[in-house]
Every structure is written in structure tokens, then in C-alpha cells.
């Protein structure tokens, strides 16, 4: 059943970027060190409210993502806590080396906000659909990687990341999505939790971002058919909650990972790395398979690239067959 503080709500949908915008203003009120920079995407990355509230702490950088993150590195080096916003394909897509050298090796608290990540950007097409950003961020030492599942979790993640003295990447979506978490739901960096749990589960889905909702729907539907499914919301990809992954593998002996990202290098790879070392069990991966996206509605794309709840159900059947 659904975790006690969660409540699925498809009525009043919001995007994770919306929650970030609200959280950043809250964080800014409690910590004067927080500043925000954007690469000509103030409105769509939802940093506009912060800019209005704190005009002296907001910097428009123009369409220059390399400078965006390196100026932020300097500000953080001096003692500020900069949040830098752009689209994920551009930041961290275009400025990877600057992030590696001036943020991660420097080890300064720059918070990289990658908006419009994943296929659900929709009509903009492949150039704007970041499907590799989790991989390139989680491979960097000192980096934290968070992929919130809904707007409220994005708000809490923003508040939490504002308080860490480390580099961080926060992956956000453009599309409005159902809400899952509530004001009662706690957010603990680096700790996954069971969003949906059954007593004698046959399989565990480990999901992040928009796919958490699809996973819960798949679990609910399969439950009514007598297949018991657990769903873990793994909002923090790095540092990864190894304990919950290992205990899930021991409990069910079958894992499905689900993410709006290339299978290579993302959440699925991270989970597989842990289980290969600690407790190997059959794993099926829901994610994009070595392809770029294309124009379409988010729903069309999720179905075509097999990220929808029907595809997750298919993966559960596959992994149960392998489990034997």
C-alpha cells in the first residue's frame, strides 16, 4: 500500500521546476549567502520569483552556460551559495568540464539546476531532451545528484541542497505531473524510501523522477492481479542508498529500475553496480535504450520509449520469469 504520508493527486498538477522556484525563495529568505544565476532562462527555470524577491542576489548571465557555472564557482569560492539554472542539455550538457574542474575539484557549493530534463520536454525534440545528465553528473567525485518525483519533493530537495556545503545537481522536468508526496512527507538526502510497500512482495521497482508515479500505478494494478510489487522512491542517485537496495534485493530477489534517462549510466546502472557487488539478483531496466528522443506529447513519448506504466508492468513480468 501507499506510504502513509503520500497521496496520489492528479487534479492539481505542477512541474518539479515549480517546486524548485518556491523552494529557492524560501531558502533565500533563511540564508543570505544564497544567490541565483540563469543563462537567459529566468521564467522557464522558475528562478523569476527569486529574482523579484532578491534583485541584488540575482544575476542574468546571458546565453553562456560555461560562464554561468564558472562565475558561480567563483562566487562559491568567495563564500556564496549559488544556484545556477538552465536546461539540462546545456547545463550540465555544455559545461561539463567547467563543472568538473571549477565546481567538483574546487569542491565548492554550486547547485546546478538542470531543467527540462527527460523526454517529457515533449515538442522541443531531441536537442532539448536531456537523457544523459544523471550519468555525467553522478560520475563526478564530490557531486550530489537528486531527481525529485514531484513538485513538493523538488521544493524540499531545494531547501536541503541549499544547506549542504557541497556541489549538487538537481534534475527537474518541464511537464506538469501528478503529485505523490505531501507536506507531511519528509525528505532525507541520500535515503530512498518505500513509496509503495506490500508484505510479501515478489519484485521491487526502484524509480526516480516522473517514473515514480508510473511505477506506483503499475504496482497498484498488478496488486489487484495478485502480483505483489514494492516501489522505492530513489530521489537521491548520489550518494546512493545502498542499504535499501540490498535489503530490497534480499526481500524480493527481483528488481526493476525505472528512470526517464538512458539506461547507460543512470539510476539503473547505479543500482546494478551495487547489486553486482553485494547481492546479485535479476534486474530489468526501464529507460531509454541508446536512442535520442523526438518531438511529441509527453504521453506519446513515454509510450513510444517504453517508460509508461504498461511497459513497467511488462518489465515486472520479465524479471519474475527470470527469477523463476
Amino acid at each position, binding site marked *: 500500500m501507499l506510504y502513509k504520508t503520500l497521496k496520489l493527486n492528479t487534479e492539481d498538477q505542477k512541474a518539479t521546476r515549480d517546486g524548485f522556484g518556491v523552494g529557492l525563495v524560501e531558502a533565500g529568505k533563511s540564508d543570505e549567502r544564497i*544567490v541565483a544565476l540563469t543563462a537567459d532562462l529566468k521564467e522557464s527555470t522558475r528562478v523569476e520569483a527569486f529574482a523579484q524577491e532578491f534583485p*541584488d*542576489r540575482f*544575476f542574468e*548571465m*546571458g546565453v*553562456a552556460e*560555461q*560562464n554561468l557555472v*564558472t*562565475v*558561480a*564557482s*567563483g*562566487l*562559491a*569560492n*568567495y*563564500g*556564496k551559495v*549559488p544556484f545556477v539554472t538552465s536546461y539540462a542539455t546545456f547545463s550540465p550538457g555544455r559545461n561539463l*568540464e*567547467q563543472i568538473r*574542474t*571549477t565546481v567538483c*575539484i*574546487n*569542491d565548492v557549493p554550486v547547485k546546478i539546476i538542470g531543467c527540462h530534463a527527460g523526454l517529457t520536454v515533449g515538442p522541443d525534440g531531441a536537442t532539448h531532451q536531456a537523457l544523459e545528465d544523471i550519468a555525467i553528473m553522478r560520475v563526478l567525485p564530490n557531486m550530489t545528484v537528486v531527481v525529485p518525483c514531484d513538485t513538493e519533493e523538488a521544493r524540499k530537495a531545494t531547501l536541503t541542497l541549499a544547506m549542504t556545503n557541497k556541489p549538487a545537481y538537481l534534475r527537474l522536468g518541464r511537464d506538469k505531473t501528478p503529485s505523490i508526496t505531501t507536506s507531511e512527507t519528509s525528505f532525507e538526502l541520500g535515503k530512498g524510501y518505500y513509496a509503495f510497500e506490500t508484505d510479501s512482495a515478489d519484485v521491487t521497482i526502484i524509480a526516480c523522477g516522473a517514473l515514480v508515479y508510473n511505477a506506483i500505478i503499475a504496482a497498484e494494478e498488478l496488486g489487484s492481479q495478485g502480483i505483489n510489487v514494492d516501489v522505492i522512491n530513489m530521489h537521491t542517485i548520489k550518494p546512493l542508498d545502498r542499504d535499501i537496495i540490498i535489503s530490497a534485493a534480499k526481500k524480493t530477489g527481483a528488481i526493476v529500475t525505472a528512470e526517464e534517462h538512458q539506461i547507460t549510466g543512470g539510476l539503473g546502472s547505479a543500482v546494478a553496480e551495487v547489486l553486482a557487488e553485494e547481492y546479485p539478483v535479476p534486474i530489468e531496466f526501464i529507460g531509454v535504450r541508446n536512442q535520442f528522443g523526438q518531438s511529441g506529447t509527453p504521453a506519446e513519448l513515454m509510450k513510444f520509449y517504453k517508460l509508461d506504466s504498461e511497459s513497467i508492468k511488462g518489465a515486472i513480468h520479465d524479471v519474475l520469469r527470470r527469477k523463476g
Partner: protein
Amino acid sequence: MSLTDVQLKNLETKANDIRMSILEMLVAAGSGHTAGPMGMADIFTALYFHILNHDPKNPEWVNRDRLILSNGHIVPVRYATMAHAGYFPVTELNTLRKFGSRLQGHPERHALPGLENTSGPLGSGLSQASGIALGLRMDANSLKLSGASALFPKPHVYCLMSDGELDEGNSWEAIMFAGNRKLSNLTAIIDRNNIQIDGMTEDIMPLEPLADKWRAFNWHVIEIDGHNFTDIIDAVNQAKAIIEKPTVIIAHTIPGKGITEIEGDYKWHGVPPSKDQAEAWLKGLRTLGGKIEGGHLD
């Protein structure tokens, strides 16, 4: 503010000592860059021994001037100068590029107190310096440093860059940004030695008219002889007096300066001298090019 004869003599002697240390550490390391560090020895000497407001015993002092090195590959000259300035023992210079050393092949902020920033990949130092200058200006009124204000922010931020790294797009993003923000507490110093790894800058990717380019991006431009201490110090004083814009000092330098055999030769960009070469060159430096017998370090 101009230099006395004694001050000038002391700076020249110090720069000579630093050049010798650079050669010694490169030979001990067995790899590294020769031309750039030798060419920048005078500017580093002027900065650490005359210009910078700093405290080698308290490298994290909040009101220190910030020296950001953008072209990290010339870091041997920074290490050598810092050692001579008292940041760490001169003997530690021989650990350059060795396993476990604080003196990494390219500078790492956390490896050695006083380094300020990590660099090596080119073109991002000026952005980092701009961010620091921006932060200092935001807090100018609260830093409690005598005379500091939003209009006259202190401390000052210096960014040392190469001419070759002006090929990088990131450099021009930073130049545009600092000009836009009128970061008058930022001074860029370009090592205009006209060489890069593959040849002469004007053959690889011409930069001229370089001063005009910076002016077009709303910077105050000063061109100097980068081996003339009076020039260097006067230019920095002028840069601090300009409050409408950031200033760039285009310092014309000779790569490999001090070693006649390699001066101006781009092939010495990224290689160290052999032991024999270094011994001969050190003898030259020790005798100030044969002008004196022996040397003050003997």
C-alpha cells in the same frame, strides 16, 4: 608610489632566485612547462613582493587580495614565488608533480593553502575571478576593510591568463560578463608571449588586434613590458584607480625569459630542461648572465 632603486634591485634579485627555483623544480620533476613560468617570473615577483595585500602565514585571511591563476600549467612559477614569499619551505619545491605532493602538476585549490583556485583546462579562470570579484563587491560594505564600499570594493582580484587561452569561448564569455558588470575590482593580466603549444599565436588563431577586442568589450586596456617592474607596478596602480571598468594589462613577455637559448621558442612551452641544460642555465642565472662572479645564493 614609484620604486626606489633599492626596491627595484630587490625585486630583480628575487625574480632571479625564483627563476632558478623554477629550473631546479622542473628538473627534479622531469616534466612540466618551462617557457611560461620563466616568462612570468617578473610579474609573479612584483605581485607577491610588492603589489598583493596578503599574509603568507594566514592564507585564508578574508581581506586578502585574490590571485586567480587561469592558465594552470604555469603553476611552477606560482609555487616558486609562494615558497620564496614564505607560504611553505623552498625545499618543498622539489616535490613538484610527485606522488603525495601538495604541488600538483596543475594547481588544486585544496591541495595547498593560498592557491585560491583549481585550473589547468584553459579559459575558465577569468570567470572564476569574476565570480569572486562579484561576491566581494556584494559584500564590500560589510567587509569592514578601511575605505571599501560598493563603489570602491576591496580586496582586489587579479586574474593571470595566457594569450593562447583566449582561443577559448569561455574566456570571451567572461570578458563580456565582467565588462557588463563593470567589475572594477578585477584586473586581468595577460601573459602576451605570443606562443602556444602548436606554434605562434598569430599563426594558430590570430588574436590581434587584441587591445581593441578588450576595449570593445568595455575593459580599460593597458599594454606594458612584462619584464619591467616599474611598468608592472604602475599599470596595477592605474588599474586600481579606474572605477568605471575592469582593467586588462596586456603584458608583453618573452617566453623562457632569462635563458637566452630558449627565449621566444614555442617548443619550450611544455617540456622541462635536462639536468645538464639546467645546470648551465642555473650558472648563468647565478652570475646574472656573467655580470658577476658567483652569486648571492652560493
